């Protein structure tokens, strides 16, 4: 049983703990110093009962020197001081190491996450990643700190105490320690059951949080349809399940510590019976009786610890597995070998471009060929699902195309240095994401060292200056949770200003002004064209009016070119563009 147990632990350790090896090596000196202090502390602890034994034995013999007892006690207190110092330092070293490892590992994962592509984030929900970064990191810290201490401490203490007890009082020890292995066994078994129940509690808790989160986010819908009752009932079910999960956990959890105290009480009970008889038969000194009692009490922790160590290491292994799952994902998009610097933009050529999302058979982009020259503005129109967003995401390598299908100034996209490629191609995505900082910091996010003039210019072009006047803190207004709630149009224009400030070679607007009214949009686009003379733009929009500022318009149909040409050409050609244009003209005719 023990053999297989150790093998099992060892297997987990080999497989999952390899991630920790470099850190363990780095803090080896901490661990060594920690173990040293721990062993000193333990040795001191083991010697304390000896003083009590000596004192009581000298007392019970009858005639004794009180000063001798005094000397024993002073020695005991001195030793206790040494133990306290030892205790502080093993905590200092081992907990210090495990906290540092946790910190560095968290850093490593976060840095890794920064390099992950959107395919990765499509598979992993934010909540899931956060759970790994919090709960799992905690389990790993426990495994690299507490489990380690419990293991060394338990092993050393248990062996030493057993040696001391068996050499002096073999029969008495043999009888009194009978209940102790059961502590380990119970903790081990309970650990297994606890794991399952603990998971159930966690899941029920997530369900509750998600339900509440959803109810509040969609509160206006709930109110409009007067479905408060319905949502309360749904929540009530989740709430009951969470309650039931907690109670089932407590049925085991609540039993462990009483059982452990019970079993350790049994050892005293056995000691009383057998040790007491030996005392009466003068086969044992009273001091030794007390010493055995103290040693038995000291054995309880290692027995508990043995069980916990296994649990902690198992749990740590499971958590490391979940962390490794993240770390093992190679960044899909990264610099190739010896990446080239990105030159001034002259021309972008797309040559029979194809793209298919992971796990879906349908290709989103089909054999698309296109050239975009510096100083041009390209408009893109297409039905929902025609591949507009996918196409433009392939350009700054937010999505990854096959090598050689896109060239920048004739250079394959993959051989350009990634971060400079991205700083020469900026994009305003469909969905606006701002950080919970001030408006100023959000706009400056793309270019930290922008001058006040540059900042004022983009604020003006995005017509934010009008809105800022109404905010009490102006540019310093906080965005997000604790700040004022910005309207969709305001958020879009902040994101637009942010991209504009970066002044990229190629600016891509992905339906970026959909929440802005026509008049304002018209102003913004006019100013944009003026400001970005000689620079290149791509504009995606549903509105024909928006697309009219482009030199060329691309109509995407199922991922390939449906139509391509200037507004004039396309409005005369049969096809989607003309249909939509006519649709809107028809509306105008109806109006006039």
């Amino acid at each position: 049983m023990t053999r297989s147990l150790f093998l099992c632990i060892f297997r987990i350790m080999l497989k999952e703990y390899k991630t920790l090896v470099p850190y363990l090596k780095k803090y080896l000196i901490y661990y060594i110093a920690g173990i040293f202090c721990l062993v000193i502390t333990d040795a001191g602890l083991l010697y304390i009962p000896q003083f009590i034994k000596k004192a009581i034995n000298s007392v019970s013999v009858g005639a004794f020197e009180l000063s001798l007892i005094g000397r024993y006690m002073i020695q005991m207190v001195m030793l206790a001081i040494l133990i306290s110092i030892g205790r502080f330092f093993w905590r200092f070293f081992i907990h210090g190491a495990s906290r540092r490892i946790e910190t560095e590992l968290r850093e490593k994962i976060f840095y890794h996450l920064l390099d992950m592509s959107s395919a990765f984030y499509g598979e992993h929900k934010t909540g899931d990643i956060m759970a790994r970064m919090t709960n799992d990191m905690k389990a790993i810290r426990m495994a690299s700190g507490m489990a380690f201490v419990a293991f060394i401490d338990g092993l050393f203490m248990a062996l030493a105490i057993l040696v001391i007890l068996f050499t002096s009082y073999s029969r008495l020890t043999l009888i009194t320690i009978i209940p102790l292995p059961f502590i380990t066994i119970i903790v081990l078994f309970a650990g297994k059951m606890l794991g399952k129940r603990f998971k159930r509690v966690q899941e029920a808790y997530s369900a509750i949080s998600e339900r509440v989160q959803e109810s509040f986010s969609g509160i206006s819908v709930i109110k409009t349809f007067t479905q408060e009752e319905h949502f309360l009932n749904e929540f009530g079910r989740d709430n009951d399940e969470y309650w039931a999960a907690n109670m089932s956990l407590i049925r085991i959890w609540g039993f462990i510590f009483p059982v452990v105290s019970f079993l350790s009480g049994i050892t005293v009970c056995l000691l009383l019976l057998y040790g007491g008889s030996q005392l009466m038969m003068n086969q044992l000194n009273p001091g030794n009786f007390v010493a055995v009692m103290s040693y038995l009490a000291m054995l309880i922790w290692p027995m508990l610890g043995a069980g916990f160590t296994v649990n902690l290491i198992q749990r740590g292994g499971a958590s490391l597995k979940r962390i490794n799952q993240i770390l093992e994902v190679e960044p899909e998009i990264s610099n190739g070998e010896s990446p080239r610097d990105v030159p001034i933009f002259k021309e972008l050529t797309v040559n029979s471009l194809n793209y298919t999302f992971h796990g879906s058979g349908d290709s989103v982009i089909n054999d698309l060929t296109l050239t975009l020259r510096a100083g041009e503005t390209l408009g893109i129109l297409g039905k929902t699902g025609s591949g507009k967003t996918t196409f433009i995401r392939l350009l700054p390598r937010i999505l990854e195309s096959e090598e050689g299908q896109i060239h920048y100034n004739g250079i394959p996209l993959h051989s350009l240095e990634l971060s400079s490629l991205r700083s020469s191609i900026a994009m305003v995505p469909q969905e606006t994401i701002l950080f919970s900082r001030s408006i100023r910091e959000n706009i400056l996010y793309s270019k930290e060292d922008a001058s006040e003039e540059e900042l004022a210019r983009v604020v003006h072009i995005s017509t934010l200056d009008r809105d800022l006047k109404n905010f009490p803190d102006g540019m310093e207004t906080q965005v997000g949770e604790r700040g004022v709630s910005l309207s969709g149009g305001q958020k879009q224009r902040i994101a637009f200003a942010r991209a504009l400030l970066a002044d990229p070679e190629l600016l891509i607007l992905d339906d970026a002004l959909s929440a802005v009214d026509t008049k304002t949009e018209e102003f913004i686009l006019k100013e944009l064209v003026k400001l970005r003379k000689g620079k290149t733009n791509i504009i995606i929009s549903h509105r024909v009016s928006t697309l009219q500022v482009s030199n060329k318009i691309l109509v995407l149909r199922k991922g390939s070119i449906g139509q391509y040409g200037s507004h004039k050409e396309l409005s005369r050609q049969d096809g989607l563009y003309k249909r939509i244009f006519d649709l809107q003209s028809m509306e105008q005719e109806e109006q006039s």
Partner: protein
Amino acid sequence: MKKEKSTVENKYNHKVISRLFKMAAPYRIWFIVAGISLIFASGAELTLPILLQRTIDRNIMTEWSWIDESLMEEELWSETVSENEHFVLGSKVYLRTVDIPLKKDSEINRLREKDTLSSEAWYVFQSNKAELSLILETGIQMEVSEDNTTGALLLSDLKKVDQELYKQIRSSDFSGLRRNTILYFILLTVILLFSFVQIYSMSWTSQGVMKDLRLKMLSHIMNQSLRYLGETPVGTLVSRITSDVETINEFFTSVTISILKDLAIMIGVLIALWVLNPMLAAITIITIPPVLIATVVFRNMARNAYRSQRHWIGKVNGFISEHITGIEVIQIFGQEKRAREEFHHNNRSLLDASLSEMYVFAIFRPLVDLFRSISMGVVIYWGAGMFGRGILTLGVLIAFIDLIQKFYRPVMDMSEKFTIMQSAMAGGERIFQILDEDHSIVDSGKDPLPENISGSLEFRDVHFAYKNDDYVLKNLSFKAKAGDNIAIVGYTGAGKTTVASLATRLWDIQSGQILLDQKNIKDYPLQSLRQTIQSVQQDVFLFAGTVAENIALGSDIPMEQIRKAAEQVQADPFIQRMENGYNSLIHERGSNLSAGQRQLLSFARVLAHNPEVLILDEATASIDSETEKLVQNAMDKILKGRTSLVIAHRISTIQKADKILVLSQGELVEQGTHEELIARKDLYYKLYKLQYESKSA
């Protein structure tokens, strides 16, 4: 200043505690069970060392002393003798040394000098004549009672008899030992059972209170007005119901019961010490103040360290979560390096905070342990002295060592518990703050809606502001006859969307009246009002669940009606294309649907509920032009015979309206049909021209 704050804190704490206990009222039986179990378990736990002491002193290490008969005249002695086991042999009364009521050396010595108290240790036992003579044969001096049933011999002589005989003499002690061991075992079982009952019933109470609190809070918060809900971040509300309620668990299980238990044990230990030996107890108590001082000092340190650590954990986790959500922005602008640097800074601050927290505990725990060793050293030293003078027995000394260990165990995590209590109190305070604030829309309406409601709607001198005096709508009056189709146009920020929210009483107006079928909407029950007037909102929200569930939204709507609604808004084709049709799951926030598809679903949702009055707030803004055209065609049928308000950017979609309202900065500036307004050549005309020109340019 600081002190003042803490007293305020304390006052509030009392309130929080008493309210928490009120919440526990439905579970009082469980609470009482927990309390009773606690008393039994702690009582039994404290009995253990005393039982051990009695076994050692009265059975294992038992020794007797005699006093002279003459002392029996004194009340002290006659009482002691009658209360305890004793034997009278001749003129001597034998008592266990433990029971001798003298605690001062001088008194003992005085009696010994007068030869009225034995100066040696004796052993007294009950036996029979045969056995007694057997002992006498060995030549050991022994006093024997007249009826030959009791013998007394010097303890030093007892060790001289052979083993068989020794066992016979001490047989009553051996059986006493066995009896006490069994008693010890029973006590352990009692502790086991009652501890479990206590833990379980306390959890039943706390889990029950938490369950009730969560439900109460959700229902309370859901009933609040959008004014309040809009001002409070969703994340805050969620954590009130989840993590703050979780701290209440700590309040009941870790704090209430465990502090009670710790106090019970500590006080119990002090009482037990006092009962065993008042003088040694007094000496023990002298060694306690340093620990108390250390605990108080440490309590503050621990609290600060804990707070700082919590602060940085929140920062780091918030940072991670925000940057995961915004990963695209970071990558688009190539700001990975900056994100790394900022994260590094936060992460290191967290490390510093957790290390200081660790140091605080790394100092405190060993310190308490040191104090325990000092206490023990002092007690053993004094105890040994007292033992030497014959005023303390070995059993009592051993019991003291055991009890001191028991006393210091709770001290170890007392400070931790105070910290937990503090956070539980803070959590409770936040919870009750939410429950105390009531910003709900008063549902005072008693008049039921008429069966066949006509659906006429009127705004009469309506003034409305989201905040203070910033009026979004000023003096707005208009009338919609039953079945009318009213359109509202105007620039962004003109107050169009607000009109929709006011009609359904998502917000209450400051002054004026809104009438449905000539009756103030405040006079109708909120629920039936909102079932009569429904709107397709600009912001689409989809819930996790199937497509059909999102359309029905908890109402009992047959599948056919759901499908019909979806067909009307042209959503049926894409729903059919989804893997499981109407039973396809919608991801978190509808991320597997396009913006246009989400809007169509939200549209279908309203149609499925078939309201008498329909409000469309930019209901087709994200839908591509071709689909929109199809929806527009269906719209004529949908709107027929139904009162409707249509809010739109695009004038093309609303020109057939019975009446068009033009809003500007919260005021109604024009109204009339399309033709009338065009003829006026004012604001509507300008809006119209603007759109017309941009399309033909």
